[in-house]
């Protein structure tokens, strides 16, 4: 792994110390953990009483109520769970666009979210698209221990999903970090990602070169993933069309997110630190 990426992971972890992942109520489920779940569980925090149902644990029958009322009543305690973050990183080559801070920003953002999740007592899984979705080695440890973050895949996340879908934990918080620059219908992959998730956040991470059209002049643009080339003369009208295409793409993703109940925001890689407010605004992060 490149030293710059590792350094970005450290920086992101340091930055994420100031934030905590904002866990939606619906996401308060998971394996037994230290965080109160939304269901009754085996913690010591009393939650409610209800009538005994066959199969209930006999240990939670309140025998005092049975003595007084001759009715079997079980005590319900708040469940203590560990929320989970599934961080899905786009591992395609476009995320490591030359002469941009995109790759570093992905690593930094991933580390930040992981740190924020840790602050929120969340477990985490970091998925990287490639030939299928693979978890990063040591992704359960602190970001500095992650390994094999490599943005060299020729496949889009959608294609990776077809090959080997990630094994998300149910009711986890899922965050997709990608530039979303691939053709196809966004709704399809979003539905898949949203399925079984407590919440889905889509963070579109763009380099400034992606967001703003280049300077005027003749350009031979090369697709970082396919290697395809095209020659274009950039003028004001072309720049305008580029901006319209980008806006149209973002709009289609935004519409798809709205349909799936996902939240979407766009961050410029070079302006990552000042863009964190966007993550707060979609209630992904909250100051720790």
């Amino acid at each position, binding site marked *: 792994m490149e030293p710059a990426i590792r350094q970005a992971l450290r920086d992101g972890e340091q930055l994420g110390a100031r934030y905590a992942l904002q866990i939606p109520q619906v996401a308060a489920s998971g394996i037994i953990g230290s965080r109160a779940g939304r269901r009754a569980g085996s913690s010591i925090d009393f939650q409610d009483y209800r009538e005994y149902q066959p199969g209930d644990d006999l240990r939670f029958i309140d025998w005092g109520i049975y003595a007084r009322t001759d009715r079997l009543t079980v005590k319900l305690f708040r469940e203590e769970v560990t929320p989970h973050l599934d961080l899905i990183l786009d591992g395609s080559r476009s995320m490591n*666009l030359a002469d941009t801070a995109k790759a570093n920003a992905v690593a930094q953002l991933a580390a930040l979210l992981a740190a924020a999740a840790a602050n929120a007592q969340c477990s985490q899984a970091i998925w990287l698209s490639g030939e299928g979705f693979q978890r990063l080695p040591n992704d359960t440890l602190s970001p500095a221990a992650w390994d094999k973050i490599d943005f060299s895949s020729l496949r889009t996340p959608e294609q990776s999903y077809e090959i080997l879908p990630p094994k998300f934990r149910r009711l986890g918080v899922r965050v997709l970090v990608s*530039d979303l620059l*691939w053709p196809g219908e966004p709704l399809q992959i979003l539905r898949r990602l949203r399925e079984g998730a407590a919440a889905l956040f889509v963070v579109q991470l763009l380099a400034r070169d992606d967001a703003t059209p280049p300077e005027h*002049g*003749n350009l031979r*643009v090369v697709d970082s*993933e396919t290697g395809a080339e095209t020659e274009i*003369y950039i003028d004001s009208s072309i720049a305008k069309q580029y901006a319209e295409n980008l806006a149209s793409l973002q709009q289609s993703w935004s519409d798809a997110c709205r349909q799936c109940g996902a939240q979407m925001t766009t961050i410029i890689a070079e302006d990552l630190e000042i863009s964190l407010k966007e993550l707060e605004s979609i209630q992904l992060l909250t100051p720790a």
Partner: protein
Amino acid sequence: MIPFLTYPLALLALATVPALAAIYILRNRFRRKQVSSLLLWRFQVQSKAGGAKVHRLQLPLIFFLELLTLLLLVIAATGPHWQLPQSQRPLIVVLDDSFSMRATKDGISAQTRAHEFLQKLFRQQPPPNTRLVLAGTEPRSLGSAVKNWREVDALLPQWKCWSPGAAIDSAITLATELGKQQANILVLTDHKPADEKISNPRLEWHAFGSPQDNFAIVNASRTVFGEQDRCLLEVANFSSGSRSTKLLVQTGSNAPQSSLITLGAHENQRLVFNIASSAPSLHAVLEKDSLAEDNEVQLLPPIRKHVRVQVALTNENSSTLVSRTLDATGLRAAISDNPELVIHETDAVTSSNSWSLRWSGEGATNAYTGPFILDNSHPLAAGVALEGIVWAAASATNSPGDVPVILAGNVPLLTVREDVSGRRHLTLNFNPALSTLQNTPDLPIIFWNILQWRIAEMPGLKESNARLGAEVTLKTTDEAVTITQPDGEKKFFPKTGGELALETPVPGIYSVAMGAVTNQFSVNAIAADESDLSANLTSQWGKWSEDTQRRLEEASAIWIFGLLAAALLATHLYLVTKSKGSS
């Protein structure tokens, strides 16, 4: 095709075009740039589903603006002209300046009628600009082009009609050159053109003369005739029938003598008579007729010049021979003080302005019978025949600087040398004892030539009577010369050395003051062709064609190309500013 090689500036400007192209090619070459995806560049991708491929122009609009501006500047540097239509052509008026234009009918001269016609033409159809060309013996342009009648009228006093002839064809040629074959040419004269069918569509020939009877003195001279002067008067009758006129001749203050002359149609009569050389002037006048200018002549006494010759020969025979020969010429002055020619045998010291004739060959025994070689272009050889003579001379060779005039083989017999002060030194290689030259007219001819040459080099007028328009030669000293014309006009020539050729624009007595000496010469209006008014008439030949009323005139178009270039540059600036503003 624009001749760029003749316009170095244009060539330089043209060199900037490839420079500009190079700049743009380098600047606009495709820069390679990696992008995340071509998804956002889909608008550039050609549709594969039919339709023609449309390639976007790779160079920006400002390149073409700059290129066009450069090309406009290149064209401007070549000094382009275009032809603009002009409503009227300029006018060049050829004015007959001969004195036949002074002939009057009913008291009005052809010149006056032509003047009135020109004024009327300016009132009705004023040309944009006008030039006047005087057709005298030689054509002469009167100043530069003028714009209106007032300016034309100010030039017309120079049209005096005193020339003895009118070179109208030459004047038309000059007018055509001045007008660059674009101007209308108007000829104002008193006679018809040589070819009455005028093919030039830009030439109009107007004659204002009238056929009239006229007596004229067509020849007059007064020459030396011994102690007297011989006068010749030739009177011509330019009438269609026999007519008579009265000739009055007055010499000095004597009473005029009248004689009746009757001549048939186009007949001449010569009157030759002698008068005393002391008579100051001869005034001959014919009766008044339609052309007064050719009825009168004044003849001044011819110029008699003699050479003071000092014969310094020691040989008595030779001295006697030379003296007799000199006397035979009639050009030797009575006195020999302050001599103008010294004849000697040795290199004697001569006075400051005298020529010398060295008589060598005394005792020579070589007798030459010819053939003799003469430089016939030399004034000393004029009329010399040397046929059948014996010329004894020393067999000397030519001295350096001496120009041989007569030679016998390679032996110079008569040579001439000019010293730094302009005096001429002659050498006559001649032994009369063994020669027969002195028995022939050739020796006095040679001496006459010598004296005549010497006279010709003396300061002063060469002739006292001249025809109108002829040049009168004045041999000058270092002193200033003042010429007073008959019309009172004076011309001053400060310190002229050599010769002056004096113009004679008007008839009458001219006064020439050179230092303390004042001489006169007479100029008479004598020209038979001008005096013959029988063929004069009033008519018009030729007509400016209608299509010449509109013409194309070349005008500089540099300003147009400059203006277009400026407009393009302004557009360029606007586009650049707008582009920067939008980006």
